[in-house]
């Protein structure tokens, strides 16, 4: 994706919010933590369902079904019932466009 298409624009992901995008068939959740964008796979490692309806609280995304919490900056699982980290992806910002490298 080095020179690919932007998956979203910065103004589409306000600070403290998330946006779900599909990058090469992979569901990715863009998270704006105080102006900086992080990308994680949109899958809760506990039950395999999406995280995108969950609340972003600081750098933590909380799964809407069972409350598992992940640090979106590192992918680490912070509370049970999730044990495994969520996959994270490098993000580039160019000319207001958000690019995710799978």
């Amino acid at each position, binding site marked *: 994706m080095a020179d690919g298409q932007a998956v979203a624009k910065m103004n589409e992901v306000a600070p403290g919010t998330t946006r779900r995008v599909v990058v090469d068939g992979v569901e990715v959740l863009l998270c704006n933590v105080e102006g900086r964008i992080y990308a994680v796979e949109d899958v809760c490692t506990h039950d395999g369902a999406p995280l995108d309806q969950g609340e972003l609280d600081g750098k933590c995304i*909380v*799964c*809407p*079904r*069972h*409350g*598992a*919490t992940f640090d979106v900056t590192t992918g680490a699982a*912070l*509370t*049970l*019932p999730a*044990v*495994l980290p969520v996959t994270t992806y490098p993000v580039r910002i160019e000319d207001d466009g958000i690019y995710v490298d799978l």
Partner: protein
Amino acid sequence: MATELKTPGADLSEDYRHGFHDSEESYVFKSAKGLNREIVERISSMKSEPEWMLAFRLKALELFRAKPMPAWGDLAALSEIDFDDIHYFVKSTEGTEKSWDDVPDDIKRTFDRLGIPEAERKFLSGVSAQYESEVVYHSIREDLEKDGVLFCDMDTALREHPEIVKKYFATIIPPGDNKFAALNSAVWSGGSFVYVPPGVEVKTPLQAYFRINTENMGQFERTLIIADKGSKVHYIEGCTAPQFSTSSLHSAVVELIAMEGASIRYTTIQNWYRNIFNLVTKRAVAYKNATVEWVDGNIGSRLTMKYPAIYLMGEGARGEILSAAFSGEGQHQDAGAKVIHAAPNTTSVVTNKSVSAHGGKTTYRGLVEIYPGAIGAKTRVKCDALIMDEKSASDTKPTMKIHEQQSTVEHEASVSKIGEEQMFYAMSRGLSEADATAMIVNGFFDFFVKELPMEYAVELNRLIKMEMEGAVG
């Protein structure tokens, strides 16, 4: 013991000896029925809690409202719960007493009848007695205090050890885990807090006793036990409630943390009256070479939904869940166990035994999951159900999710009825039908009873015998 047996078919409610009800006249506070933001704020301010706990409660209240009721399990029984018909906070006294003599007389009588002070004198390291929403009596042996063992109610822990509570509280069971965990997180009160420092072994058990006395009350205690590296502790809890014509709700959250090489055993004997909804979330983590054991006995209640869980997070961690359930008329014991193997060379054993009689129903609902990379994980699950008559029923719903090929999984299940041959043999030795039935059922539960301290084993055998009396004839 045959002289203790009553006529077969006797009304069991007469035999529920914890069914007495005390006066509520002297209570300090009792919230109106129903749940709203003001009640949650009131609970928090009456306890003088820090801001972060109030914020936690209010967020949990939102989650409770947003979350649907479970879409599985005994839906008919669950639909009987009316959340607007419950008192969420009932405070019987001003504070927690350290001397038994200072506990108000009426409450003291209750616990005297339940045998608590006697049990403390005999064999316990510490005792906590919760009446309605708060702990009314608490004591811990001096030598344990000197070793740095912390054992107090959760309200006190939040005041006196906020740094430990904040670090671990709700990290094992987040409020969003399920609707009842969210409810507990919003209105929790009381429960036990235990911290055992590294290398300290608490040789005799710590005990807590939970008593509901108010009709239509919800009891929402919150327990957090942390065993630091290489330490060891055994915690026991018992629960009862009076006989009421309308139901009450008991919805606890219990979190256990066993650090490297530590060991926690958590024993529960629940003997609720038959219209209590007992919906409890219990979960433990065991790190490297740690051991967690849940010993869980369920008697009584209208509906119990309880699946003690162990997350084996470090190499060599070990988990064991032993549970026994008895379900009588109009009751459903939906109980089970969950074990997650998330590290190599972890081992677990799940043993579940249930008896259903007089039209009661038991369900075993269990999950064993072995994560990728948990090489050498071993698990053995055994569940046996005994059905006493044509009206009673039992279901077994085990789930196994195995993502690691280099692991060993054993599962064994059986459903049986009391054998005519067994009965014939026992009765030909001179036992009455009732005695023979009780003996066979006690034998069926023997694996469980022998894991209990003597006083509890005797009490459980007595309860089972009492429950069985109506099962004959």
